[in-house]
């Protein structure tokens, strides 16, 4: 594939910036993981709360950079013309760098309690989870979103002619800007402040990012598999409709215990239980679209990360979100590590992996090296994927122990009672962190230097030799045979079965035997079966899916005619 529109190349700089921020983000995560094990580490240099603020803000910024880059890459293709105002996009690039640098340094002021109060607003940093950025950065970010919104909407054709993907992206970039405004005010009441803070955090993730995500995934499936835009449009429409219809009131699951009335517990439990529906739907669609034809994967790493994004969206956002969305389970999971397991798998998995997938799709095209060595990309995928599953495991099980010691036994001495009990799981964080960091380093190196490294000798295609190597052993295990819809359904069912086990594990904390008797056997047992089961099934499913995709190459080599048969326009 070739670049059709020159303004698509503007996405390259945002992909590069995304990778730089991602690497800093991973380093920050490593610092936090090490501080979980030894809280005295780097105290006074970069305190835990500062490192965490950086970790959350960079987490948002690198994902947004990935979105912007992906939108710039597909925008001209969708609109069949160049992006408008390229100078504005170049300005946006420098604005993003300035915002990130400004915010990176002002976060350190928290160590001296300097928020920069002026006109009643904190201008340097405001110490609110996810919204740590002060007003200076906040207002600049608003300007940045306005630029994105303007450029995208001006490039698109008139609204009457929009297809579903354009609707998704158009709504997404507009809502991205609108929702941010709710985080730009100082609110004195704690309950009201939390109420509006979740407007930004929940509606961003559930109402905006999810919408952009669904649209971009749909677009990349069209590009990768020549899937029918009509059927993808159908999926995008229902995906977005279900996300908004469940997620709008679903925000209520953040209003259980912040000082708002108890009726939210009913609405939140009801509607956010529906939130996984669109995710199951989208998950199913990537299966269908990937099986539009039986051609071998052209760009394996791009599809690996795209699949990872969809599967972790279902598992991390969908299932691990579902388990704690009921008032009776949330009362225990709230304010513990259990929520961190969900957040890591959902945010990095769903949105981060999409950005990386887009980079793997777009960069070889822009650097004009369609036949690049794909082994590094695949290796990096397996490292960050298993690493993040491991992190989710550590947080989830560690969180279950935390619930028991902190909430059931009421021991609130973290250094003396809670941490010793969580010790092993704390240690797992830096261990899996090293796995992720290795993968992140590899993929960043790969994408930075892709097309600039030593060229592959003409005539040899590493992609195909890699396929041939693995085809034989897989034939013995059957992991390479085509994945049927029935089998995919069984995998999906298995994930949900373990998800239900985990839900009962949290629910079991309500039993008098646990709550009054102090016997943790049942919740521990259910969590001990449920979390590893869920994460291993996830790993197994992705392995199986990708093995069947990889085997296509081998089949194509042996019987070139067969590959042509199911191909359709």
């Amino acid at each position: 594939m070739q670049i059709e529109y020159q303004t698509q190349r503007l996405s390259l700089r945002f992909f590069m910036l995304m990778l730089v921020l991602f690497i800093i983000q991973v380093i920050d995560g490593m610092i936090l993981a090490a501080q979980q094990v030894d809280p005295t580490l780097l105290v006074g240099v970069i305190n835990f709360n500062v490192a965490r603020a950086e970790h959350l803000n960079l987490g948002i910024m690198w994902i947004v950079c990935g979105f912007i880059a992906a939108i710039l890459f597909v925008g001209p293709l969708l609109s069949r013309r160049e992006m408008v105002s390229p100078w504005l996009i170049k300005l946006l690039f420098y604005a993003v760098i300035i915002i990130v640098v400004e915010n990176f340094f002002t976060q350190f002021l928290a160590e001296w309690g300097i928020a920069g109060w002026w006109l009643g607003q904190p201008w340097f940093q405001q110490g609110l989870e996810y919204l740590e950025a002060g007003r200076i950065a906040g207002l600049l970010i608003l300007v940045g979103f306005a630029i994105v919104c303007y450029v995208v909407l001006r490039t698109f054709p008139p609204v009457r002619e929009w297809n579903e993907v354009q609707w998704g992206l158009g709504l997404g970039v507009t809502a991205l800007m609108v929702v941010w405004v709710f985080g730009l005010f100082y609110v004195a009441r704690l309950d009201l402040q939390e109420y509006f803070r979740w407007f930004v955090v929940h509606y961003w993730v559930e109402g905006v990012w999810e919408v952009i995500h669904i649209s971009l995934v749909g677009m990349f499936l069209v590009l990768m598999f020549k899937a029918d835009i009509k059927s993808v449009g159908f999926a995008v429409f229902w995906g977005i409709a279900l996300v908004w219809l469940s997620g709008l009131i679903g925000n209520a699951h953040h209003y259980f215990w912040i000082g708002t009335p108890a009726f939210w517990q009913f609405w939140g439990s009801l509607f956010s239980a529906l939130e996984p529906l669109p995710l199951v739907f989208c998950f199913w669609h990537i299966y269908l679209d990937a099986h539009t034809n039986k051609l071998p994967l052209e760009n394996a790493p791009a599809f690996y990360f795209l699949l990872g994004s969809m599967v972790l969206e279902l598992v991390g956002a969908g299932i691990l979100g579902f388990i704690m969305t009921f008032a009776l389970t949330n009362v225990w999971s709230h304010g513990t590590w259990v929520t961190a397991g969900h957040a890591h798998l959902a945010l990095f998995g769903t949105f981060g992996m999409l950005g990386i997938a887009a980079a793997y799709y777009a960069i070889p095209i822009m650097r004009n090296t369609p036949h690049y060595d794909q082994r590094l990309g695949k290796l990096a995928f397996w490292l960050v994927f298993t690493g993040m599953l491991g992190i989710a495991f550590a947080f989830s099980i560690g969180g279950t122990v935390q619930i028991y010691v902190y909430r059931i036994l009421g021991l609130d001495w973290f250094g003396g009672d809670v941490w010793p009990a969580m010790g092993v799981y704390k240690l797992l964080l830096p261990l899996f962190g090293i796995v992720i960091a290795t993968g992140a380093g590899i993929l960043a190196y790969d994408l930075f230097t892709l097309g600039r490294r030593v060229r592959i000798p003409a005539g040899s295609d590493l992609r195909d030799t890699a396929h041939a190597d693995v085809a034989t052993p897989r034939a013995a295990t059957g992991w390479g045979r085509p994945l049927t819809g029935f089998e995919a359904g069984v995998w999906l069912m298995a994930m949900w079965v373990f998800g239900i086990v985990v839900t009962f594990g949290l629910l079991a904390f309500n039993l008098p035997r646990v709550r009054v008797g102090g016997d943790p056997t049942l919740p521990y047992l259910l969590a001990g079966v449920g979390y590893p089961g869920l994460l291993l099934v996830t790993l197994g499913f992705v392995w199986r899916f990708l093995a069947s995709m990889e085997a296509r190459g081998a089949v194509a080599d042996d019987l070139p005619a067969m590959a042509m048969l199911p191909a359709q326009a």
Partner: protein
Amino acid sequence: MSCGVGGSSCETPRRRGALVMLVIMAAIFIVLSVFSFVKSRGQTTPDTITYGKYTADQGKRVFQAYNCMGCHTLVGNGAYLGPDLTGEYQRVGPAWLAAFLPSAAGWPTTAAVHVQLANPDQQADTGTDSMEAYLKKFPGAAVQIERRGGGTTYMPNLPFTRDEVGQLIAYFKYTAAMNTEGWPPKVEVVGLERRLQLAHGVAATVPAAASAAPAAAALEPAKVALDPTARGAQLVKDTGCLACHATDAKRVIGPGWGGLYNSQVKLADGSTVTADDAYLRESILKPNAKIVAGYPVSVMPSYETLLKDDEVNAIVTYLHTLEKQ
């Protein structure tokens, strides 16, 4: 007419239906939101809560400025490195908080909390100046002092000013007064010993930090009593002096002690005095009589009613031995 191919949409009729549904959902959400914040709901608001001259709103700004939410949770939101602070005021009370916050790297002892009760703001807030009554009212403080007192924490010392400490207490007073619909859930496992045993899986023992010091003191009572320097060293630990003073020349909350004895001290009024025995005694008993240049007034409480004469002498003798380093 074809849809989808030329870029036009196939889902237009369905989109209208979805939009209508969305508007209904939004209406429900808005109605629920309005009912959440009406006055008749009776939720505590920050403008009704003060501690001394400090308001809860000032405290909220301090809480945000230090990004406390980056390690702790409040109403369960934030980070999970340290405990939830929503009900902390109700559990341990203002005096414990006032003793803890200025030097958060150490757990306050009984004396350090007791000293705070000399503060009129504390008396007005807790309704008592007696330690027994205070610990009865805030049993969480008693457990905390018994189990952790004198030990070190994992929280870094933060440069809170005296005002900021008061403001934070006002804020915690507000969060503790909020109705959070029964969260965090009430602990129903009875008995601290039993809970500790369940958590640690062994017969409950009083933690080493708390038990070791009295045990050691009990073993060698004669020696401690005879040697005023050792007695002074023990007293500055037990009385909580070390929460604010370093044994070297470093500034913590108050001036460091290293090399202080017989040195020339510059005072806030511009004069200079020699830090002799009389000066040190006076600084312990009437801290506001002479303020060192660069330090605010009324930060240190008076120890007049808390220390006996021979105890003050022992501390002064101990101060003689500290070198500048």
